């Protein structure tokens, strides 16, 4: 099974409240660049689908692709260190990218690489749009399965049984690949990703263990030698023509007033009744 995993580098989302704005630009001075966490979950899902976890052998191939400045190569190297086989950097400035351009670029890469699946985050932690994966699927005329919380592959990824989280409840689906999948917050709970190779008795550790694959020095050394191809948006034949434009950014208004600390339930009830008037 071959899986393409698009990854984006974003300013550290844990410090998103330190982002600054100036006119029509967002600046991230002093913030670390990290892999978009939603993509990080997709990558880990892809790794689980392409390995025998019991004997730690790879049984499939992962190609990671990132569109962005040269520095995005660092994010790709991180993915290679975790176990992905190859990387592709499509050079482009963040300013010329929107979900439309990203979908066009990824479609070109898919045509070239012919993966069985594309696995990606449902949104980037900066733009929060939740659009690119679905646009990519339509561009390819493939199914899109957003918010996947369980995935089981058969026939080398050609047949998929999935669960996905909708606002109204959980939907179960059977899908004939190739397809684009975006993952939900629950995708890495034990027992949610099955590829028919890793024995059913094997249990992955729970969430929060995403960096364990990077603790292996051998993997990191090996990652330096893994192929990382570089191309550009123009070389792929995509015109970087955005279909939207941000005319300005601002910071949200802070909440007015201070926090009143209370010691007793009676005080809280009194405040809610007489001051806030919500009881």
């Amino acid at each position, binding site marked *: 099974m071959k899986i393409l995993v698009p990854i984006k580098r974003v300013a550290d989302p844990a410090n998103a409240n330190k982002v600054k704005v100036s006119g029509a630009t967002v600046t991230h001075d002093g913030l670390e660049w990290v892999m978009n966490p939603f993509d990080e979950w997709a990558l880990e899902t892809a790794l689980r689908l392409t390995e025998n976890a019991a004997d730690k052998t790879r049984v499939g191939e992962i190609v990671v692709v990132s569109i962005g400045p040269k520095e995005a190569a660092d994010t790709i190297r991180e993915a290679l260190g975790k176990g992905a086989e190859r990387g592709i950097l499509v050079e482009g400035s963040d300013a010329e990218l929107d979900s439309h351009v990203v979908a066009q670029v990824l479609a070109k890469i898919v045509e070239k690489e012919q993966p069985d699946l594309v696995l990606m985050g449902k949104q980037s*932690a900066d733009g929060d749009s939740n659009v690119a*994966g679905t646009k990519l699927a*339509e561009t390819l005329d493939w199914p899109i399965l957003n918010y996947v919380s369980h995935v089981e592959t058969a026939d080398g990824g050609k047949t998929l049984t999935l669960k996905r989280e909708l606002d109204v409840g959980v939907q179960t689906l059977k899908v004939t690949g190739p397809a684009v999948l975006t993952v939900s917050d629950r995708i890495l709970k034990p027992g949610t990703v099955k590829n028919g190779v890793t024995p059913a008795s094997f249990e992955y550790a729970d969430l929060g263990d995403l960096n364990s694959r990077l603790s292996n020095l051998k993997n990191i050394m090996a990652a330096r030698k893994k192929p990382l191809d570089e191309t550009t948006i123009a070389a792929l034949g995509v015109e970087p023509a955005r279909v939207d434009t941000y*005319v300005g950014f601002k910071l949200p208004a802070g909440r007015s007033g201070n926090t009143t600390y209370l010691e007793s339930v*009676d005080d809280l009830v009194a405040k809610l009744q007489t001051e806030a008037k919500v009881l």
Partner: protein
Amino acid sequence: MTDVLVVAELSLGKIRKTTLSAIAFAKTVAEGTSGEFDILVIGDGAEDAADEVTGFGARKVLTAAIEGDYRCEAYAPTVAAVGKEYGVLVACASTYGKDLMPRVAAKLGAGVASDISKVDIDGGELVYTRPMYAGNVIGSLKVTTDVQVVTVRQSEFEPAAESGGSSDTEEVDVVEADVASRVESLGIEVVQSERPDLSEADVVVSGGRSLKSAENFEKVLEPLVDALGAAMGASRAAVDAGYVPNELQVGQTGKVVAPKLYIAVGISGAIQHLAGMKGSKVIVAINKDKEAPIAQVADYFLVADLFDAVPALTAAVKKAKG
């Protein structure tokens, strides 16, 4: 003059209330640009459900009956075929709207303004406001294609009220796509609750991982939820731990809520959680740790053990409400 097509959301053959936020957007844009708006009701039971939205002042209510569970691949071709005649297509930014509308947009080569909190009309041009970076940056966006596709944040668009009159209904042709045959739904476990919907409730009580178990959600938190007539929410950590189902998650990747009163019980307040509730009018935190980041947004912070405080608060609320 901008004509708007509202794409209604159905569940179990009924219009979901999310649709009313999309109608509210459509009214604003149609009125502000001297255009009109129509509503497309698509899915299983569309023809019967259409009657629910004929009283909102739409020029027409269009119906497209498609049997079976929702699948984006089965709906998008029809929405695109109908939608190409409009200036703006809008749905609520529920999982339905966020799943369906980008596919429609790609079919039409349209730009998407996703999960917007506001629309302004500037000399006939639409300018969308949308929270980004988990609500830490507010962007102003223009879409530059002939057709614009929009999803609206439910908590920021007051549901439209019925305005009387009765729109004509009209059936439209269903357009099929081969790709839909590759996606088979084996069912949706629809969660039904007697409580108010999370996105619509005036009061939300959310629990975090400190509740320690599903049983404690039931025994400790739910009595308070019900005493207040509130909706129940949860932090991602509590959902991940399996204490409550995913539909209750409040945050950057869950529901975004803005009730009159939000009570966060045993929630530390990760940046992703704050993104989903900091627009609430009054925020109460109940937490042992007064340094918890939830303090950044809390109006009232009860420093207490939730296992003592919540039952006491439940009793006090019951007494206050008589």
